[in-house]
């Protein structure tokens, strides 16, 4: 029985990192109203950054996290400023095609730069575990999940208690009102996109502790972020974390009970059900 407990716990921990990545998607969509189809590609780019830094400097990915998050923030800010901004207000499918183009270029650019092989980042504590009551938890997952929760909490505090966070929320809630009171909406949009990408950078860095980096992972991660966010409810912060945990646990269980290769079947099945029955997500408000 304890083996199930271990698997569920490991699923929860992995799921929190999924949740952090999905949170980035949720912030971008919630504020800028653009579906970031290049989300997985950005995550994998962050994973490679962690791999390069770990390889050349020999530092633990967790220590390079702020650096990578800052780099991705800059990427996101520039992306919004130079590419996405002119597309605000254009038809949904044109925005989608723009980000599709970005994702194709990034995915294959990564393939060109790093090749198709899986890249592994070794850490000293890779095979350590922490005993918690009857459960045995992987140390890497505990660290990654703890960092994810801390960042999500930080994001909540930022949106709730800072002026800048409030201003960004104002743009999301009432664009016209935000413009009327004189907020620089274009800058705030770029900040929000950058912030979403910073979360991607952080989650990619944490993800590399648990999974090897390969370009092909990008497609899976984009879909995973969509699944998590839609199950949790687009725009709901708590929803993204809950959705992440739900997917993490269901994948871990399916991988153990059935076959590892069948684990995504449940995620896609769940996505179909949620899209049909509760499109606003499990935690979202009805539009």
């Amino acid at each position, binding site marked *: 029985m304890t083996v199930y407990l271990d698997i569920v716990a490991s699923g929860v921990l992995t799921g929190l990192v999924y949740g952090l990545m999905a949170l980035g998607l949720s912030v971008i969509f919630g504020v800028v109203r653009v579906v970031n189809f290049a989300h997985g590609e950005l995550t994998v780019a962050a994973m490679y950054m962690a791999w390069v830094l770990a390889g050349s400097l020999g530092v633990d990915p967790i220590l390079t996290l702020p650096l990578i998050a800052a780099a991705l923030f800059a990427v996101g800010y520039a992306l919004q400023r130079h590419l996405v901004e002119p597309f605000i207000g254009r038809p949904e499918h044109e925005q989608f095609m723009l980000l599709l183009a970005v994702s*194709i270029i990034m995915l294959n650019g990564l393939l060109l730069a790093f090749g198709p092989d899986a890249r592994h980042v070794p850490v000293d504590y890779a095979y350590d575990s922490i005993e918690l009551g009857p459960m045995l938890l992987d140390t890497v997952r505990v660290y990654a999940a703890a960092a994810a929760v801390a960042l999500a909490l930080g994001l909540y505090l930022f949106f709730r208690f800072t002026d800048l966070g409030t201003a960004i929320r104002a743009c999301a809630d009432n664009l016209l009102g935000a413009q009327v009171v004189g907020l620089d909406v274009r800058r705030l949009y770029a900040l929000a996109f950058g912030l979403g990408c910073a979360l991607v950078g952080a989650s990619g860095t944490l993800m590399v502790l648990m999974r090897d980096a390969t370009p092909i992972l990008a497609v899976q991660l984009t879909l995973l972020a969509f699944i998590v966010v839609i199950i949790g409810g687009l725009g709901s912060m708590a929803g993204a974390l809950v959705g992440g945990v739900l997917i993490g646990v269901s994948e871990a269980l399916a991988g153990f009970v059935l076959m590892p290769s069948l684990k995504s079947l449940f995620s896609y099945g769940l996505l179909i059900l949620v899209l049909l029955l509760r499109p606003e997500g499990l935690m979202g408000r009805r539009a």
Partner: protein
Amino acid sequence: MSARNLLLGLLALLVVAPALVGAYPLAVLILILHYAYLGIAWNVMMGFAGLLSLGHTLYVGLGAYVAAALYASFGLPALLGAIPAAIVATLAGLGIGALGFRFRVNGVYFALLTIAFAEFTRILFDHMGWTGGSSGFFLPVEHGQVSPVALRGPPILFYYVALAMAAGGFMLARSLMRTRLGYAWLAIREDPDSAAASGVDVFRARMAAVAVSSALTSLGGVFYAFYYNNMYPEQIFSMARSIEIILAPIIGGLGTLFGPVLGSFVLTLLGEGTTGLLEHLGLAAPGAKQVIYGVALLVIVTVQPAGLWPWLAKRLRIGRDG
């Protein structure tokens, strides 16, 4: 120049092309015609009816597997196997459409629904023993066998089949556009609520678009199966292929007739040109072709979002017939 003359000129050129070119250009032309055909099929849903499907590889894969399995097990020739293949794919399409439209899954959400079904099916086929699972399914090949009905023969046979499919798909799309249904699609694409208010049965028209598009796409899958003689769920149901299908019509011009054809020519030539150039320089660079595709898409979406064809048609003074 009128659209009609352009069409006839292009067709005449393509009919005599095999006599003029070697084996490699012929293979490239087959690829161009195949993607032009798939683009035309996808365009019926997105370009005409405004339904963004990102899971079209589902219909390619179903068509390929059904026709291939019937040929391998019962020796059913491709031309006959295409019928059950199209039926299976159309039923799948109608099922997804009915669920999506009844439950009001719109826009990007509908696109995600189509991805979810395609990916779901990919994983199922990966684990299905009798189609070979992830190790793939192979068609029996007999050397020297020539039979147009069974789609067995040299590349030139496949060339003319691909040409016939592209031309047939083009003509079908062209005539559909001028029917009541075609106008209903355009009305729905522009504004579903207004279309409904003016008496268009939105649900039925959308279902018709899905049926036409999935049936046509599955025939492309039958062609794929017999041309390549092998299929792996990993490839044939992959999202990368769904995206490859939609690039030509987007770059050529959504909702236009010539768009998918032009887009397929431009993209395939760009892609093959890049690969050829890199090989010439002694560089094997997987991904280079796709980067070029991505850049082409980026340029088109930012500079000419309506696509290449409307721009070219204006230059050539071709009316809205295209």
